[in-house]
């Protein structure tokens, strides 16, 4: 099995991608993603892998350059964060509509203003409807594993869609921790070279992603929706192959001590580990609490989610983002709409917390579980906000 090393997670994410036989990387540096950008540039400049590093002048250019590269058949990678992701926004749905399996790491960070470089999920949420497969990681090991798996998922002939792996900024990117790397040979066996369905080539001119009139546009939207929904089974298949080869199991929805839990909390990203420690503390005191962790955010794994929460009385949904002026955080609003038609459903509490790097300790998660004892609940509430 893999070699155990201590390494900063951002560096590890770049090292993981270096095992993936990429052809092109275009990465514009932005805090807290910068170490991925710098290290990727080093890896390619030092000739450790045979790939092109395109030095672009913005994230808009990065993703645009990769769209071209991917259309020409290349395995293409980028990484960004916050304002950088916002600048890519225009191109993201074009990439998915063109069915280009570009893979990206997003070092999750708050968006301006005011300027804030710290962690939350407000950068990825506006990209939610862009047609990208969207995965969340809880620790550095998951950042390595999912970075590698993302190419296999994205390039699967049944999928052919871009994929973003969310790695919480600072909380994960700047953490030195023990990590295991698969060998180059093992990754090569797991991830064969990309076989593009169609590619731009001067000898065989084709057009990709050009124009749709009102009589065909809706069909393209539905085609993308069918493809993205269909990606779930491929994600599950790739997770299961990973478990067989490398021993680490992943689920599109994962649970922790949830079996007989009366109150469940749902988290995405690095919140999961601290929340799990809170669950352990509360279980010691006889509290029937557990955890549901949403790994696959798009496509939303509806059936797996319903199975994971079956039987609980209260579901506390954590959102590290807010749909400003809307009905709470984006995760909870999705969940409420999924549950609306169900005969048996839990009471759903939505907590918006951990914005712009506001730290969430084990004690904070215990307090947020405690909100389940409140008689009446608001549509959503901020946790720990000063009035």
């Amino acid at each position, binding site marked *: 099995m893999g070699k155990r090393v201590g390494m900063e997670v951002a560096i590890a994410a770049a090292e993981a991608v270096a095992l993936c036989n990429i052809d092109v990387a275009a990465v514009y540096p932005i805090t807290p993603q910068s170490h991925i950008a710098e290290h990727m540039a080093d890896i390619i400049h030092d000739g450790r892998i045979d790939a092109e590093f395109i030095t672009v002048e913005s994230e808009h250019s990065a993703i645009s350059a990769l769209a071209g590269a991917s259309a020409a058949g290349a395995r293409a990678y980028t990484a960004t964060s916050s304002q950088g992701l916002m600048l890519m926004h225009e191109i993201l749905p074009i990439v998915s509509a063109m069915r280009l399996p570009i893979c990206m790491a997003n070092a999750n960070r708050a968006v301006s203003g005011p300027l804030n470089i710290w962690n939350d999920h407000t950068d990825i949420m506006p990209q939610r409807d862009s047609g990208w497969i969207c995965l969340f990681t809880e620790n550095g090991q998951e950042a390595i594993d999912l970075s590698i798996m993302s190419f296999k998922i994205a390039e699967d002939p049944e999928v052919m869609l871009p994929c973003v792996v969310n790695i919480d900024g600072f909380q994960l990117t700047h953490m030195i921790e023990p990590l295991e790397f698969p060998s180059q040979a093992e990754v090569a066996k797991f991830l064969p070279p990309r076989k593009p369905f169609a590619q731009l080539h001067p000898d065989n001119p084709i057009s990709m992603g050009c124009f749709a009139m009102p009589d065909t546009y809706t069909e393209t939207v539905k085609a993308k929706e069918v493809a993205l929904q269909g990606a779930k089974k491929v994600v599950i298949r790739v997770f299961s192959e990973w478990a067989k080869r490398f021993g680490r199991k992943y689920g599109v929805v994962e649970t922790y001590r949830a079996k007989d839990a009366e109150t469940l909390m749902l988290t995405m990203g690095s919140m999961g580990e601290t929340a799990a420690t809170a669950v352990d503390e509360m279980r010691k005191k006889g509290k029937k609490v557990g955890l549901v962790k949403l790994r696959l955010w798009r496509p939303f794994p509806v059936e797996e989610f319903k199975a994971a929460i079956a039987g609980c009385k209260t579901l506390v949904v954590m959102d590290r983002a807010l749909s400003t002026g809307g009905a709470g955080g984006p995760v909870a609003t999705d969940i409420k709409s999924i549950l609306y038609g169900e005969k048996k459903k839990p009471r759903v509490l939505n907590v918006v917390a951990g914005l712009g790097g506001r730290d*969430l300790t084990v004690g904070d998660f215990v307090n947020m579980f405690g909100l389940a004892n409140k008689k009446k609940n608001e549509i959503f509430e901020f946790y720990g906000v000063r009035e």
Partner: protein
Amino acid sequence: MIEIRWHGRGGQGAVTSVEMLALAAIEAGKYAQGFPAFGPERRGAPVMAFNRVSDKPIKIRSGIYQPDVVVVLDPSLVGLVPVTDGLKPAGILIVNTAKPAEEIRKKLNYKGKLFTVDATHIAREELGLPIANTTMLGAVLKATGVLGLNAMKSPVEHRFGRVASKNLSAMKRAFSEMKAAKAA
């Protein structure tokens, strides 16, 4: 699990210290985290960095507010930033200072376990620089017993190359020259 908070000034290598300690612990088969106080670095400004070391997997992704150990890299921070904040009652304070321990106690109004070492002096002699971050690692190892001195060899050599041996000598000196202050 042991939680350590480092206080230094931007540019003094507090982040390098937590990196060296985390890497050494991981290489020794333990679980460890090393991380900066997240945010922009400013040379000369007071900064913090953190370590967690454990024999079991660490499942906490928050900052450290009740450390077991506080390390002060820069003597001028004593009395300037609240270095003993949240330090556990049975915790350990390790200060780089040329001053008598009594003076540190008085200045911080601190009655807990205290260790002092003139790491800047050692660093000047061994490295020719008043940068005490690697030197103070020796003090941390001695005061906590979290790892042996030998555990630092490989990460320090990997990081510092040809100046590694000087850093390791400085570390060894701090390990033996550090003094436990009399109980208050």
